[in-house]
């Protein structure tokens, strides 16, 4: 194997089509005879449908068909992860119908679908549908939904509780540890609800071909095969081999495009019904109501310390809001992706999380960039900085004192946490120390003291995070309730001329797979990158796949490709040995050449490829061809970690926070393309900082989202940020062949608490000893914190 490309900032292969306007997103696709769908949605959060009258709409020009719950309400989308109550009972899993016929449960719940000759006509007709609603009281807040007498989102789910759940040490042990503590920091806070806001709105085209009895679904998804599997096996009962799902260019996902949405099944059904393609593209206003949201935890956390500042225990009670229906991964997020991360980087000996997951009359909540891990990190890192302030010690020294010592996972074992996971490898002191060097900590504290006398306060906030990525071992997730495996598939097809087509089940929607994966393949095979094509996103061409989320593409999908590459090389060696008339043990494969060790006899990769397909001089008992497919199922999660430091300036007069510096030292294991990894970190930082300062879905008491557009939901803009200061440490992952850990979510996980901590630090520097400010830290909230 050569290292011509791996580790280099190779420019992206996919860019050319995007910078010239030739990207092909679902809404760009026009099929002959295509019709357009518009979905009529509930304006109420909770209401009984008394009647639906579509007659006027049906009579309108250009209307092809109108579907309602009466016709398709018996179909519903499933949840992909089963979690049980503490007492072992199965979670409550009410149906999520494609169109509602009895009772709407959140604003935006789908009631009818109009299919017409044009977008305009479909929308015009939808306005003519008359629906008589009986409005019911709604419940929005998770902690209030469990109270006696609260409105029931689903009539057969008592107290709106989907399930309760716990993880960690026995509660009594944690209670005892806290009772012995010399200081307890208590923090009650809300991890607010976020709208994912991938820039491309969701878009689907259903196409039914009655000649071949075959369905095609074009969808803006992160995992086409998973959508096909769910839609065929659990929703519509279609024969899977007669269904093709294509995820073409997808304009960002951040989790929100993992899930199987009702509209995917609706356009598929409608295309069969009318015999023409049906396209549905949501508007941004719809996206705010229907794309699964992220976070929404209400938490009380207590962290106890002994007199030396060592953490002795951590006790947490959280209500997680799941929304009105269970989205595909929703139940895994507050539990297995969150509770299992509460060890953080610390040796905390006793941990207990008590979690209640609740239905409300709101949009479904599911994984959003980081998914569960940002919630765990926010909780821990806010507690660490706040504890330091309360105890009058330095927040970095408090961390250094409590960090798990470095371990490589090879010569030293992994670190077994109290919350189920075993970390693979880590050097936590290293990233913090590097961060402090970059910050110039002593000078900062001097500048802060000076600033405290002015109207522009300075603050610094720290966050040392860990996450679990590269999900994951199928056996482990299966035992935890996942209803699917979480391996990945990689097929390498060497063409007769030595050019290579690689088929991956991972899906790229901005991550640069076409480049990074090609770098790995080109180096392993010793061929130019131009000779490698990465193909993904089409269930007819790619054997299978689980898709892209949880920073898993390279760690799992890349490893599957490496497995196939190893098989290619192994077979190539046999062919070479035969042609070179030597033992296969004498063949070595270096820089694209099969050499006979110690001689100048050699055959190029292209020669071997051609021989495999023109097998005239060929080993007996060896199949022709050079094409291998592999399934890779990891043996553990990967555990990237890092140190994020925010420096903020708070305007004392207005409460406005400005990010002055942001330092991120991340350890994501080995790096294939530093440029792309940096880009992933940048984007994650912007989203994480966005949560701290700008973003948040706001409901009124009737369940209306009052900021359901970019006029009111604050998206971070270019002038909200400085240039980010990045550095890296490399602790390879010991258990996958590339040694990579994943970088997609790191920025979003580490940054949020650093920013809140920095604002709190700024306020303490001027004597305002506040414990918490609710995110997003808007100017008014910070200003009010300074008035009390």
């Amino acid at each position, binding site marked *: 194997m050569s290292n011509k490309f791996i580790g280099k*900032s190779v*420019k*992206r292969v*996919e*860019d*050319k*089509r*995007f*910078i*010239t*306007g*030739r*990207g*092909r*997103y679902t*809404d*760009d696709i*026009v099929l002959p005879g295509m019709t357009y769908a518009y979905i009529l949605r509930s304006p109420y959060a909770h209401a009984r449908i008394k009647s639906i009258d579509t007659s006027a709409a049906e009579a309108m020009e250009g209307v092809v068909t109108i579907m309602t719950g009466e016709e398709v309400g018996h179909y519903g989308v499933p949840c992909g992860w089963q979690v049980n109550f503490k007492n072992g009972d199965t979670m409550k899993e009410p149906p999520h119908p494609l169109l509602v016929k009895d009772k709407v449960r959140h604003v935006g719940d789908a009631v009818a679908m109009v299919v017409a000759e044009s*977008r*305009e006509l479909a929308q015009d007709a939808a306005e003519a549908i008359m629906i008589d609603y009986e409005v019911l009281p709604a419940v929005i807040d998770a902690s209030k939904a469990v109270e006696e007498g609260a409105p029931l989102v689903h009539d057969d789910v008592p107290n709106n509780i989907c399930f309760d759940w716990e993880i960690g040490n026995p509660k009594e042990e944690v209670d005892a540890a806290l009772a012995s503590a010399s200081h307890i920091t208590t923090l009650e806070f809300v991890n607010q609800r976020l709208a994912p*806001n*991938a*820039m*491309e*709105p969701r878009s689907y085209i259903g196409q039914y071909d009655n000649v071949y009895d075959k369905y095609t679904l074009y969808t803006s998804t992160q995992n086409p095969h998973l959508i096909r599997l769910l839609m065929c096996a659990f929703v519509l009962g279609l024969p899977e081999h007669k269904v093709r799902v294509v995820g073409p*260019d*997808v*304009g*960002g996902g*951040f989790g929100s495009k993992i899930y199987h949405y009702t509209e995917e099944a609706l356009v598929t059904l409608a295309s069969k019904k009318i015999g023409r393609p049906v396209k549905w593209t949501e*508007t*941004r*206003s719809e996206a705010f109501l229907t794309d699964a949201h992220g976070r929404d935890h209400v938490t009380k956390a207590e962290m106890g310390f002994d007199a030396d500042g060592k953490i002795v225990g951590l006790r947490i009670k959280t209500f997680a809001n799941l929304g009105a229906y269970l989205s595909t991964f929703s139940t895994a997020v507050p539990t297995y992706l969150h509770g299992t991360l509460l060890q953080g980087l610390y040796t905390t000996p006793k941990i207990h999380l008590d979690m209640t997951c609740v239905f409300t009359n709101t949009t479904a909540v599911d994984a959003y960039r980081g998914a569960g891990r940002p919630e765990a990190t926010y909780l821990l890192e806010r507690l660490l900085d706040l504890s330091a302030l309360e105890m009058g010690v330095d927040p970095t020294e408090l961390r250094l004192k409590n960090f798990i010592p470095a371990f490589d996972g090879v010569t030293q074992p992994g670190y077994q946490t109290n919350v189920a996971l075993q970390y693979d490898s880590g050097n936590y002191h290293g990233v913090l120390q590097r961060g402090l060097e970059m910050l110039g900590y002593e000078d900062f504290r001097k500048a802060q003291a000076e600033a405290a006398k002015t109207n522009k306060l300075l603050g610094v906030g720290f966050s040392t995070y860990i996450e679990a990525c590269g999900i994951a071992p199928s056996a482990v997730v299966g035992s935890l309730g996942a209803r699917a495996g979480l391996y990945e598939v990689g097929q390498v097809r060497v063409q007769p001329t030595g050019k290579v087509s690689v088929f991956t089940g991972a899906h790229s*929607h*901005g*991550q*640069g797979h076409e480049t990074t994966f090609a770098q790995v393949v080109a180096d392993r095979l010793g061929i130019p990158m131009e000779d490698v094509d990465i193909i993904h996103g089409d269930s007819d061409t790619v054997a299978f796949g689980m898709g892209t989320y949880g920073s898993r593409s390279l760690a799992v999908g890349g490893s599957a490709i490496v497995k196939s590459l190893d098989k290619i090389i192994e077979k190539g060696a046999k062919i070479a040995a035969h042609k070179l008339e030597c033992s296969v043990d004498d063949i070595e494969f270096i820089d694209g050449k099969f050499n006979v060790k110690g001689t100048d006899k050699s055959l190029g990769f292209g020669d071997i490829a051609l021989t495999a397909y023109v097998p005239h001089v060929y080993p007996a008992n060896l199949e022709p061809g050079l094409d291998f497919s592999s399934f890779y199922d990891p043996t553990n999660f990967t555990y990237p970690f890092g140190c994020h430091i925010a420096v903020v300036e708070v305007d004392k007069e207005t409460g406005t926070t400005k990010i002055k510096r942001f330092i991120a030292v991340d350890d994501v294991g080995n790096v294939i393309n530093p*440029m*792309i990894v*940096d*880009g*992933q970190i*940048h*984007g*994650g*930082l*912007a*989203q994480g900082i966005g949560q701290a300062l700008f973003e948040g879905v706001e409901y009124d008491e009737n369940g209306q989202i009052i900021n359901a*557009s*970019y*006029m009111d939901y604050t*998206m*971070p*803009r*270019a*002038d909200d*940020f400085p*240039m*980010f200061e990045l550095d890296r440490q490399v602790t390879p992952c010991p258990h996958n062949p590339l040694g990579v850990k994943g970088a997609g979510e790191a*920025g979003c996980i580490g940054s949020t608490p650093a920013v809140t901590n920095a604002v709190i630090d700024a306020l303490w520097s001027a004597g305002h000893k506040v414990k918490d400010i609710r995110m997003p830290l808007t100017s008014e909230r910070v200003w009010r914190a300074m008035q009390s």
Partner: protein
Amino acid sequence: MPKITVTVNGTSHTSEVEGRLLLVHYLRDTLHLTGTHVGCDTSSCGACTIHLDGKAVKSCSMLAAQADGSTITTIEGLATGNELHPLQEGFKEEHGLQCGFCTPGMIMCAADLLSHNPNPSEQEIREGLEGNICRCTGYHNIVRAIQYAANKSLVVSE
């Protein structure tokens, strides 16, 4: 229905359009220039930015009829033959894009900025992008891509 004549990327088109037809839909659906995207419905995200008579505008917030008689450039018309515009090159060289959805609008907006401020500071670039939202890049490399293009154009013009 109003009849309009527009010159798009150097080619003249005459079409009858519905009064309510938005310019972005005219470009995408009638002329099949799908590089111009729709990312929101409140004139906020800038994904639909094109040049109308040389100035960046949001094509989702105007009617096709309003463009009658105008010259339009879209992302598809920015390169000269196979030679990329310096901004297109900058976005590739500096990794100024990930999913690519906001990219055409970003590039068209940046082109407007550089047309009247050929050597902008970092702050001026950031402020110049206030009408464009990117969810992937954190803007860091978009700023660098525009700096790249500015530097390249300055070198060329010297």
